[in-house]
């Protein structure tokens, strides 16, 4: 990551510094008026070129192959037709004609809301649990077999249990996300706690720090990078699971939307949905990578 040598310790990366500059009231430290910057260097076109060109070529290749393969197809839409459909679809993403006919924007938002609730609950339970498992080897030995047993279970196997207990589709979908996204957070947090360097704990022992100080000044910062990796994996899983869960539960959501369009034999929309799901997943991932960068430290 970008070294923070030229910044105050709070500014772990230039991204953070840039974000702060654009939003001064949120800055936690009072900073003097911006110092005039050194004369701007000529813009580095070459590196921009190298950063942009390969992904564009990759995308063009995908669309190209897709176009060639569907040239004479009657059932599978061509890229052009799909693009036109997408333009029409995104022209009005937030219309609402009753519960079974809503804009794609609503569908995405409903799915994201379920993910947020399920994932939030999983974090609230999983992270403290990971801390406990990492800290107490008895708990570790007690719960490890259970975790190993339950973790590989397919998300959809949990759905009937949710339907049975909650007797309603929406809580069942949230339950499925909860149970599938909790494992990476538990495991990563526990591993992080177990891997806190012995030296840091020895420092705590020599200083005779209170348990609260040990947690806030040593354990939590040391575990944070591991924890954020767990959170990232969890959000990825949650987003994978929601599409599948919604296909079965129905209601408003991107997964249900895909299934609905399949029933309408509207393949264009299914392809659009695949792209949309991919892009939203990518954005979620990037968001969390950004957060993780912000809190990582160099040893």
């Amino acid at each position, binding site marked *: 990551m970008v070294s923070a040598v030229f910044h105050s310790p709070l500014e772990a990366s230039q991204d953070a510094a840039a974000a702060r500059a654009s939003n001064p009231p949120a800055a936690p430290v009072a900073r003097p008026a911006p110092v005039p910057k050194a004369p701007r260097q000529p813009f580095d076109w070459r590196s921009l070129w190298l950063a942009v060109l390969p992904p564009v070529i990759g995308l063009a290749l995908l669309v190209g192959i897709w176009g060639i393969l569907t040239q004479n197809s009657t059932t599978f839409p061509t890229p052009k037709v799909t693009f036109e459909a997408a333009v029409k679809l995104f022209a009005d993403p937030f219309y609402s004609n009753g519960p079974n006919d809503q804009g794609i924007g609503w569908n995405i938002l409903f799915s994201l809301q379920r993910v947020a609730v399920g994932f939030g609950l999983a974090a609230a339970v999983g992270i403290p649990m990971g801390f406990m498992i990492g800290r107490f080897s008895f708990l570790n030995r007690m719960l490890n077999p259970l975790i190993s047993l339950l973790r590989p279970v397919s998300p959809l196997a949990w759905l009937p249990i949710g339907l049975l207990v909650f007797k309603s589709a929406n809580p069942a979908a949230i339950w499925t996300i909860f149970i599938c996204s909790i494992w990476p957070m538990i495991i990563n947090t526990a591993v992080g706690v177990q891997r806190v360097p012995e030296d840091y704990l020895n*420092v705590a022992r020599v200083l*005779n*720090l209170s348990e609260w100080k040990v947690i806030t*000044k040593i354990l939590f*910062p040391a575990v944070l990078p591991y924890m954020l990796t767990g959170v990232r994996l969890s959000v990825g899983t949650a987003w994978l699971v929601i599409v599948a869960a919604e296909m079965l539960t129905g209601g408003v959501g991107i997964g249900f939307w895909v299934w609905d369009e399949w029933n309408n034999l509207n393949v264009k929309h299914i392809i659009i949905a695949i792209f949309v799901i991919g892009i939203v997943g990518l954005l979620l991932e990037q968001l969390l990578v950004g957060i993780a960068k912000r809190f990582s*430290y160099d040893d």
Partner: protein
Amino acid sequence: MTTDQQYIKVENAEMVFETKKGRFHALREIDLSVAQGEFVTLIGHSGCGKSTLLNLIAGLLKATSGVLLCDKREIAAPGPERAVVFQNHSLLPWLSCAENVHLAVERVFGANESKAQLKARTQAALELVGMGHAVNKRPHEVSGGMKQRVGIARALAMEPKVLLMDEPFGALDALTRAHLQDELLKIVARTKSTVVMVTHDVDEAVLLSDRIVMMTNGPAATIGEILRVDLARPRNRVELAEDRNYVHCRKAVLDFLYTRQGHVEKAAA
């Protein structure tokens, strides 16, 4: 006030580790007294348990049998009155140099002193080791020697009864090491600290110590010999290089390490 000749007292200490491969007898029959204000180094080949002995005095390890006393109280657990300078500095990478020191200062003096006083102590400790300019830097932004200085500042800031140092300069280059040794001599002369230091460097041991504790090879290592270094302080490394007494002490340590205790290493190699 007379100085306590048995400020740290180790009586017949044994250390046995229970490892997966079975019992490992690390130390046997350790008897050692350190006077108040004395500078003692522990020297020996690697694996001879000198760090183990230091950790026993620190309280980080518990002796299998035997008695360890510091200021007439049993050493049962680690505590800030026996500050440790770790070999790899062990600064918390997410805290600035000042925050690292402040953590220790706050723990020891936080109950009785104001925030401003605590801050002044932190600053004073960092200035004592010549790090007053880097208070807001994080450990990864300063050099290895500077990190070790901050580690020493953290230990000194607690005003410990005893300063325990585990090869504090082991990871540093020769020039930085010499510089920090000189600094340490000055600081100890000023603070009159009782110091127990582990080292594998013969020159370092002779230059710094009042007494050198030479340990036999492990397993079941013990104290082989204790050498008193009768050199006037303040000591100057350049002048000492030709001092007869210094050369004699150096020869005695080398003789112990390589003539009398060298054979195990040869056999192992």
